């Protein structure tokens, strides 16, 4: 049975028997190959749920906007890892969320697809098994999904924590270690790395779509929005933009679950997720810490070990 059908059936059943009051999932969006989050509260609404490679948003973000006591969360590994962080940070009460695990084939990268369609937006599109069928300029093109995957999905790691209450279908196999993606920047000279950072920061519009899409960027008031004290200038001044991205990366150190929602949300295609990745690797190597695995772990920078390395301190 296709996963969407299984999902609709499971969600309808959970809602009908009252196990949950709402199932948080996705439905088809108004544009081809796009989806939008859907809190399904009735059996009829559950019939609109979908789960496929076009589900951009990380649903865990929307958990705390729901008022219901019992929530069903359609969870891919990305949602599950973010849910572990939410449990760890006491953002949701244990037992409130029933995670419905769905297999993930990796996310379709809209930018990669557009590039394959000659730089044009698809006028129509659908998924057909492991292929994407997109129409642009009247010509239909068939592309293997594996060729137009999001970078984050190429090195996906599954959650080791058993947060799923139900699992539909077979989960996808882990696709490798994302940290190997840092090898390219590791081999660059410092000036070249800085030049790349400046180039990305210069394109950034400071629209904060990355922050809004991020499940772990949930501060009630972001440091960028404060006016007293005004931590970062509000304009698109290059140094302010760089400070914003560096500080956002610091705030996500040991918390980023590498779902890539920030990258997919960016309107100008800035991908600074490697900042989070670099800090994630440091957290793993230096402190043996990996986010999104165990809800019982203490947060990385809220704790310490007496023998933490301090070779950089005079």
């Amino acid at each position, binding site marked *: 049975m296709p996963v969407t059908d299984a999902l609709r059936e499971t969600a309808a059943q959970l809602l009908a028997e009252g196990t949950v009051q709402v199932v948080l999932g996705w439905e088809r969006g108004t544009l081809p190959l796009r989806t939008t989050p859907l809190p399904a509260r009735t059996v009829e609404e559950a019939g609109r749920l979908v789960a496929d490679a076009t589900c951009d948003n990380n649903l865990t973000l929307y958990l705390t906007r729901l008022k219901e006591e019992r929530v069903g969360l359609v969870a891919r590994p990305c949602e599950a890892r973010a849910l572990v962080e939410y449990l760890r940070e006491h953002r949701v009460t244990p037992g409130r969320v029933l995670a419905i695990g769905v297999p993930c084939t990796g996310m379709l990268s809209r930018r990669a697809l557009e590039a394959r369609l000659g730089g044009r937006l698809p006028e129509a599109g659908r998924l057909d098994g492991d292929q994407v069928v997109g129409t642009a300029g009247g010509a239909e093109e068939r592309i293997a999904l594996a060729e137009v995957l999001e970078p984050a999905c190429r090195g996906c790691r599954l959650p080791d924590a058993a947060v799923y209450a139900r699992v539909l279908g077979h989960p996808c196999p882990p696709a490798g270690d994302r940290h190997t993606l840092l090898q390219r*920047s590791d081999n*660059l*000279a*410092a*000036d*070249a*790395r*800085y*030049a*790349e*950072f400046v180039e990305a920061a210069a394109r950034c519009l400071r629209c904060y779509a990355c922050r809004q899409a991020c499940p772990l960027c949930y501060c009630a008031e972001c*440091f960028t929005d404060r006016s007293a004290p005004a*931590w970062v*200038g509000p304009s698109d*001044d290059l*140094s*302010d933009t*760089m*400070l914003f991205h*560096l*500080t956002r*990366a*610091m705030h996500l*150190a*040991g918390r980023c679950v590498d779902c890539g929602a920030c990258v997919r949300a960016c309107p100008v295609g800035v991908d600074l997720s*490697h*900042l989070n990745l*670099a*800090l994630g690797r*440091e*957290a793993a190597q*230096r*402190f043996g810490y990996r986010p999104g695995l165990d809800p019982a772990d203490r947060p*990385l*920078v*809220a*704790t*310490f070990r*007496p023998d*933490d*390395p*301090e070779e*950089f*301190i*005079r």
Partner: protein
Amino acid sequence: MSQTWEPKIVAFLCHWCSYAGADLAGISRLQYPANVRVIRVPCSGAVNPFYLLKALQRGADGVLVSGCHPGDCHYLAGNMVARRKFALLKKLLEHVGLEPDRVQFSWVSAAEGQKFADVIREVTESVRALGPARHLQKARRALCR
């Protein structure tokens, strides 16, 4: 400018140890470079990594954070938590191609006036070797004087 340039260093000193260490260096008449601007903070753990980035943005050539030795923290573990944060910050700066030596850390107790003078000398020299800060700065018109 290069002939008269002197590194400008902002030092965040914890109230209980390093600030008292600086005081001891002063009353002991120890000589050290006059390149540091001291900001007293309650604890090295109270130093937000953002402060360091902001200092660099606003014209500092280097930043120093100094606190109590591990185990000596007035608030028991502030410096241990700071140690984790600053290890991550240093890594992040290195990753984006900024010189990690622009941000420096030390443990200086209230009894270590001599160590404080030595640390300031070492930090000043290593920042001097890096030259004037070239990255992260805000346009000159907006700089604090």
